[in-house]
């Protein structure tokens, strides 16, 4: 026998199920009054510095169906690359948002400011990106991915550089559709499958 490691294992995940909105976005589920406020309604407040952008997209299952029940959370830095709570961070950027696929169309919309590039350990610089976490019925453990932008320099990003199949890099890059507007679709499985992260 050896000494035991003093480590507790993470609690196993379970699917968020079809009614996740009741818990995380009760007003979306038709329960508007139970709390005085809903968490994560917007990642920005009036006066947030930087370019205000709108990202629209859908999440498709392996059959190509735009899922109507997915729930997303996003987390990002402000326009200068600082996260809320870090020294010098923009007080009008919480950086955090909860949003859902529309029950009729399956489309989501995220209105935010474009984040700046982020300093990593060892002098690495991450290209501007928004972290995205996705849960839904049938997803047994929440999926993590990132939204990068096609009009930014992504050439030296340490995460994108690690993707061996270079054509898959494209699945993490939001496409500019108009001034301040981007499209970012997520494909859960099969052709054009989004790169999901274990990070």
């Amino acid at each position, binding site marked *: 026998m050896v000494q035991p490691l003093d480590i507790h*294992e993470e609690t196993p995940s379970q699917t*968020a199920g079809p009614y996740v909105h009741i*818990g995380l976005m009760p007003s979306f589920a038709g329960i508007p009054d139970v709390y005085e406020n809903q968490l994560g309604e917007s990642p920005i407040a009036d006066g947030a510095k930087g370019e205000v952008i709108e990202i629209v997209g859908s999440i498709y*299952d392996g059959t190509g169906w735009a899922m109507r029940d997915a729930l997303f959370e996003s987390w990002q830095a402000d326009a200068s690359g600082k996260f809320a709570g870090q020294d010098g961070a923009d007080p009008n950027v919480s950086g955090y948002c909860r949003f859902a696929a529309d029950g009729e169309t399956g489309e989501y919309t995220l209105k935010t400011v474009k984040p700046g590039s982020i300093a990593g350990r060892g002098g690495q610089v991450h290209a501007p990106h928004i972290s995205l976490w996705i849960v839904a*019925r049938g997803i047994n453990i929440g999926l993590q991915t990132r939204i990068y932008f096609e009009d930014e320099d992504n050439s030296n990003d340490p995460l994108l550089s690690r993707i061996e199949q270079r054509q898959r890099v494209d699945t993490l890059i939001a496409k500019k559709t108009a001034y301040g507007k981007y499209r970012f679709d997520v494909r859960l499985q099969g052709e054009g499958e989004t790169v999901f992260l274990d990070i």
Partner: protein
Amino acid sequence: MADLGPLIPRNRDIHPVPYDPGYKTSVARSPSQPLLSMESGASEETGPTFGHGTFGALDNNLIMNFSKGTAPAIGERILMHGKVLDERGRGVPNTLVEIWQANAGGRYRHKKDGYLAPLDPNFGGCGRTLTDDEGNYQFLTIRPGAYPWPNRGNDWRPMHIHISVFGHSFGQRLITQMYFQGDPLIDLCPIAATIKNRSQLDRLVAPLDMSNSRPLDFLAYKFDIVLRGRRQTMFENKLEGM
């Protein structure tokens, strides 16, 4: 800010398998390509904070919060309580815990739930709280009913409460479910069975806790939650040279 170190990589073996034909919806909703593994950075190690001022006095009382304190929900009164820890065994203070559940008859207050059990006019089914300085949390609620769901011919969900926990880092984000000690439906449930290691599934089964049950009022169930921890960084410089 001090570098608390990267997040400990997730041990995917303890988690449910993403693709499980027994849970039919997972078949088209599971990635077929491997995940891209990488050491965490600021995007995963930071996260939002939620102030105590945001929370109302009844937010963690599902018996009373839907009726704004005017009438109690129907059902067996229970206290759900426990501690949020990290993998180092340290309590995680001031972290957001949210729950949602069916009512005592097994029906959710949701437009997509058409189960024939009735809605309870005094039950919404959601609660939220922040852990205290030691990582402890509690909810007063009613025991949810089991309910049938369209999967195989006759599948029923065991009694369960859905739980979302934040931690302090976006990479700690976790959603799970709490089951109840002694429920025979746990062994028959295809969603519980997405966790292939039985001892890991057992970690989601809350024991009856008579020590925290209140006479003539409620039974208690204990449910601790472990979030990802951080690796220590004292030899970080040497790694950079590689």
